[in-house]
């Protein structure tokens, strides 16, 4: 049995970094970027993969992110937020590089949270189905979904970041999660009781 991993803390995970004035601190940009790479290259690559849907783009994206971070390292003043900073760069870089690719919305079927089985575990979900569901999702849904799950941002923070109304974010998040639940839990072999879409 593998324990479940909680979402990152609201205060942002990270901070495995020296603070200002320490060796490798803000004023030691070269050392700092090396540490950021060491600590977060996995997170950034995985986020890039979830956003873009393929390994090659995730690789390119990761390189772009750390190059941009390297150039702007002097602006990194709150080291505790380094991970969040890098994830936000990843998201923005993704929009810049790939936003023209708009995946088709293959299905708008959703599954209500009340129809989710009592005790869903990680092993109950199919990782390929998960990525396929993300790839098929409209970009505006996928964005809020990944900001919620991967960046662990609240609906308010997402609204602030995307400059959207809170109601819009909550609605998109709910629909995105409904679609995700449907695609992950209502497979052909799933019990028919689960197969009833909400809308």
């Amino acid at each position, binding site marked *: 049995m593998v324990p*479940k991993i909680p979402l990152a803390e609201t205060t942002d995970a*990270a901070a495995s970094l*020296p603070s200002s004035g320490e060796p490798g601190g803000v004023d030691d940009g070269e050392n700092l970027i090396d540490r950021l790479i060491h600590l977060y290259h996995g997170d950034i690559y995985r986020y890039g993969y979830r956003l873009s849907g393929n390994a090659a783009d995730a690789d390119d994206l990761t390189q772009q992110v*750390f190059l941009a971070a390297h150039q702007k390292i002097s602006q990194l003043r709150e080291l505790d937020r380094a991970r969040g900073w890098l994830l936000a*760069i990843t998201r923005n870089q993704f929009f810049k590089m790939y936003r023209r690719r708009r995946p088709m919305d293959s299905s708008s079927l959703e599954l209500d949270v*009340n129809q989710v089985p009592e005790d869903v575990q990680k092993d109950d979900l199919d990782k390929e189905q998960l990525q396929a569901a993300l790839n098929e999702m409209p970009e505006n849904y996928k964005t809020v979904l990944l900001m919620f799950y991967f960046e662990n941002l609240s609906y308010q923070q997402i609204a*602030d970041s995307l400059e959207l109304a809170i109601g819009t974010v909550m609605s998109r998040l709910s629909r995105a*999660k409904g679609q995700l639940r449907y695609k992950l839990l209502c497979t052909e072999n799933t019990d028919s009781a689960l197969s009833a879409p909400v809308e």
Partner: protein
Amino acid sequence: MSEEKKQVRIAIDACRPRSDDAEQLLPDNRHRDALRRSERFDLAVATMLSQGDVPQDLEARLLELVSDAPAPAAGEPGQAALPWSDPLMAAVTEQGLSSPSEVVSDSDAPVTLADDTSIVPGSESRRRFSRRLVAATISLSMVVLVTLAVIWNNSEVDDPANPASELADRAARWLPRLEKQLSDTAAWSTSIAQLPEGYEADRSIIPAVRKWQAFSTELDSQSVLLDLSSQRHGTAYLVVIKTARRYSLPAHRPLRKLTSSGQWSLAAWQQGEMLFVLVGGSDVRSLDALLQSPLFG
């Protein structure tokens, strides 16, 4: 679906697991079951999203990439400090980042009052006064800058490691979540072999690790919680954190007491990048007794 149900569903979906979102959006307990289902699902999805293979050579390639890249543009002139918000990210991702070579040279610098030759004839004394004023202003600015730099440097030198009290504050905030996670039987793993590499208990710990679970902290999202409880030693847990953040802590027993809260007593020690926070229940007589003495002690 009625409008009310739809609003409830939207609110449930907006709640992050193990956060206080639900307290704001769904203050009554009627939707506890749906919230619990949603939380389970969200945790499963979040876990799966955060996993996945990363190319083995990626870190090395990235290090090489940045070492070959032009030096960072440090403090571009005229660039205002940017807050932590999307404008910062927009600035980071904008095209054509300024390089040092793009910095305006002295010869291109804006003409100062002292260089102004268009002043009316017969105003030599006024020009001298202006030059003195400019010189005095520059001197004063230099003094202020040097003073600030000295103060800044001193504050850094005086604080090579973070005070243990900061860790105590952090650890006290972990306790409510820790208590919640302790009772979550599904979260524990008895497979010690599956502990993330490097997150094993310190060798000086005497009780055996019975089980473990992930316990994300703001210091390390991958940190783990180990259950060291036994009949002989009492109720004890160890939070193992990997962090480059240094605290004023010993590297071995006697441990630095952090705080006591309710039934829990907390103490910590740090060895390199590994930070250990020991959480003992009221049945533990001495946290130090859970560790062996250092060999050289």
